[in-house]
């Protein structure tokens, strides 16, 4: 894979890559640039330069509530997803449980169903079960859609672990638990980290589930953003969006430092 491309193929590949980068990055750059715009309404290109919108947003109690609620919700559902997804992936991959592939399909199914429909179904289920705690409902709903990401990445990294490593550890005197802790975990750590990162990001910017399950007190940031956009579309919304982008970027950097994300993504 270390080879360099040359000639016409190279230009084609570089061209396509550049286009993809532009389409991925440009909207983010637009949002970020608007957040510094001095104009009273969000418009592009931005006019002037100011930090006023950040000053305004960072003291806005609605924003602070929604932001910290979203971070808390994302952390909680990520931790739960890892706590549930790691043993689930191990069971699917390492023990001869009956109908493992069916179980895996069920666990991964939230990835396939339209999230909007999942949210609506959850809403109906909660109301039938008379569950009215929006915070709890959101937490369960977010965990439901983030769990498959953890199961998926951990299963994939378990598949890549050479089974003879675990067997070697066992012949050398490590019981199952110590083999898991000393040999399996270090091998799959990047996969777990990647799964956790996906889970965190999916929860952080989830709209379709939160739309159904939030109430007046439990408002995740994407819901707040949408509410604000429908009333006044000023650059403060771009500032909030930029702060979300910043959180996502920070999460990537931290994980890269901790376990090496390149390894986790198999690059």
């Amino acid at each position, binding site marked *: 894979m270390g080879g360099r491309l040359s000639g016409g193929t190279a230009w084609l590949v570089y061209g396509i890559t550049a286009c993809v980068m532009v389409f991925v990055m440009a909207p983010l750059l637009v949002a970020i640039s608007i957040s510094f715009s001095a104009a009273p309404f969000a418009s592009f290109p931005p006019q002037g330069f100011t930090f006023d919108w950040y000053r305004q947003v960072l003291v806005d109690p609605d924003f602070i509530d929604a932001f910290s609620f979203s971070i808390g919700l994302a952390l909680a559902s990520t931790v739960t997803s890892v706590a549930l997804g790691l043993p689930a992936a191990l069971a699917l991959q390492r023990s001869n449980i009956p109908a493992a592939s069916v179980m895996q399909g069920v666990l991964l199914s939230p990835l396939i169903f339209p999230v909007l429909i999942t949210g609506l179904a959850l809403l109906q289920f909660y109301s039938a079960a008379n569950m009215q705690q929006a915070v709890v409902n959101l937490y369960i709903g977010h965990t439901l859609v983030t769990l498959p990401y953890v199961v998926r990445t951990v299963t994939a990294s378990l598949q890549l672990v050479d089974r*003879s490593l675990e067997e*070697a550890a066992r*012949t050398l005197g490590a019981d199952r638990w110590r083999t898991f802790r000393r040999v399996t975990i270090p091998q799959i750590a990047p996969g777990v980290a990647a799964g956790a990162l996906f889970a965190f990001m999916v929860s952080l910017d989830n709209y379709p589930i939160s739309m159904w399950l939030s109430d007046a007190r439990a408002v995740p940031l994407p819901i707040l953003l949408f509410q604000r956009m429908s009333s006044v579309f000023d650059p403060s919304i771009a500032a909030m969006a930029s702060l979300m982008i910043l959180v996502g970027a920070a999460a990537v950097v931290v994980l890269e430092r901790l376990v090496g994300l390149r390894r986790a993504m198999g690059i």
Partner: protein
Amino acid sequence: MEIKSADLALSGLTKTYGHSLAVDNVTVRIGTGEMVALLGPSGCGKTTTLRMIAGLIEPSGGDILIGGRSIVNVPVHKRNIGMLFQSYALFPHLSVGQNVAFGLEMRGVRKAEAARRVTDALTLVQLDHLAERLPTALSGGQQQRVALARALVIEPSVMLLDEPLGALDKSLRESMQVELRQLQQRLGITTVIVTHDQEEALTLADRIVIMRAGKLEQIGTPQEIYSRPVSRFVAGFIGASNFLRGHVAGSDGGTTLVALQGGARVTVPTQAGASGEVMVALRPEAIQVQPFAGQNDAAPNTTQATIEQIIYRGSLTHLYLRLDDGAPLLAFHQNRAGERAPAELSPGGRVVARWTEENNHLVADR
């Protein structure tokens, strides 16, 4: 390094998967300090047998004894077994030294003593200067030597080698075989090696166990297996062999006369129970080939033939002969320095093939 090794006994060891028998009633005694090779084609049950000894597969029946004590109910991590894998199975996140120390750490050996034993073990495989490296920075041969040090440092009762040199290239494999054998003999450690490479089995093992379709086909020293194979399968698996069909035409004390289908006759040292249709195994290197000189020789262990093909193979020349009844016969001619196969021998030429009685050996036709 001192290792207190123990003897190993497999008694009626059996493994079934559903209705199929992967290992079928295998009984072998392996003496203390002995090295035994389990040899056979893939799917013969040799690896399953080894993994049952290690405790990685649970037997369906039979017993495994180390030093006279049954270990079938002892979990893997308490069996005190050193195992080498074809993939080396070094922990990629640990340094060479930490890899070797792993087993000692699991046994709660004190740090200072562990460090000394790790150095000793790495010195034994001549890699003490690489203790700080990560395994991925080593060559295949070095990695397997680290794995060897890691297995030996725990002073295992028994060593199990699962095609340990299969991933190495030929010349490195041969030098590693010699090194492995010397170390095994010096430490006097009871060892079982699984291989499908007959030369590896001949080089390394005190005794060879030939397995076929889950069953034990023959046990013996390399010489016994090579010179007195019990069946066509064994004779064909270890080295090359000719198989001559015939029937018993008479017996005279120590010698049985066999009339071959093509008319030639061979004499065989009498083996118990030989009668009727039999099969004679004859090693190609036992056959001397000379140009046909004109007179018919009716003596046993002689036949006329036509050369079909001559292949020069360095130390040997392979002569592919065809008997008059159409049966093939393979003969090896030893090439000596400055000497070539006789010039008269060329494809299409008539020759006389001769060998002596002790090279004939009756085998079961299976």
